[in-house]
């Protein structure tokens, strides 16, 4: 009986020791993009919502860096430039087969701590009719193999949702 108990304890201890050092936490990786077209206002609005830790990791290789301070009064002078360079590489929209130039029209922060998100807005003049939208959203797929990028598209009264990822980074919509 004592030997059985001892072997059970050894079994438990061995499993604890083997499993403990090899484990790491693995969060859900997600970003959100909302694209809205109004024919009446002739405007294509794009809003990207990105976790700040992911932005920092992509731009300065440190998820908890305070170097760039996006959307704060003392934002670093090179912050927007770095962000735009990154987005131009991993994110893009073509309206009627013509690339949309990304120019930031607004930034805002929400959430706290590791859940802090940065919203970046863009506005683009687009004369009607809007026949096609090609969307490429591969943000952070260079960092995380399981990154998912949700895209909502509203064209006048037509709403669609997409899930883009490393495997499927782009999609073409026709209206």
């Amino acid at each position, binding site marked *: 009986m004592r030997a059985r108990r001892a072997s059970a304890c050894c079994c438990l201890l061995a499993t604890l020791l083997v499993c403990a050092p090899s484990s790491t936490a693995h969060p859900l990786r997600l970003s959100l993009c909302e694209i809205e077209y109004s024919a009446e206002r002739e405007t294509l609005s794009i809003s990207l919502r990105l976790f700040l830790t992911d932005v920092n990791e992509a731009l300065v290789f440190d998820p908890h860096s305070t170097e760039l301070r996006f959307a704060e009064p003392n934002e670093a002078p090179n912050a927007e430039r770095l962000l735009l360079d990154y987005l131009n590489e991993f994110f893009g929209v073509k309206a009627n087969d013509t690339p949309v130039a990304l120019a930031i029209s607004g930034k805002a922060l929400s*959430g706290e701590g590791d859940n802090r998100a940065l919203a970046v807005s863009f506005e683009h003049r687009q004369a009607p009719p809007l026949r096609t939208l090609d969307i490429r959203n591969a943000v952070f797929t260079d960092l995380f193999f399981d990154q998912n990028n949700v895209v909502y598209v509203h064209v006048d009264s037509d709403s669609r949702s997409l899930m883009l990822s490393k495997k499927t980074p782009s999609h073409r919509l026709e209206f």
Partner: protein
Amino acid sequence: MDRFWLYLRLGFEHISDLAGYDHILFLVALCAVYRLSQWRNILILVTAFTVGHSVTLAIASLGSVPIPARVVEFLIATTIVATAAHNVVGRGGVEAGATMWPSYLMALFFGFIHGLGFSNYFRALLMNQDAIALPLFSFNVGVELGQLLVVAVIVAVAALVTRVFGARQRDWNLVVSGAAGGIGLTLMQQSWPF
């Protein structure tokens, strides 16, 4: 794709591709002590966990839960270690006739904690309160479906190990609870918030 299905798929894939393995680990620990013949107890336990999970998400959809993410991560890891310890030290559901209510209440309470994990995350990303209810609900449905799949796999593996290979239930419990406890301890150390 419909928005409901999009978030449901996201929740299901997050659990079933092992990316959200802290939740899976908890389920593994929760089921380790039970035999296939106790499937009703397992079903009630998982349902209690699901109810707790859903209640927190529903509360979070109405307003932000003011608990820092790091504290939530630490608490989730603590639930894994506590469940593994309960399996080894406590009687669990092994003995026939033993009251199951403390275990059901534990699963319910731990479900509240696990639900906190995603609520503040979605709130930060979606910003607009009106837009948070559907993604949270459908993501949660996907997570729960993934959990059911995981529980089915765990119970099937346990039945295989104990019935086909002849391992004793007690040894299976010790190995699985030991593994879950070890990983849980590492997660606690990684997410130490104080």
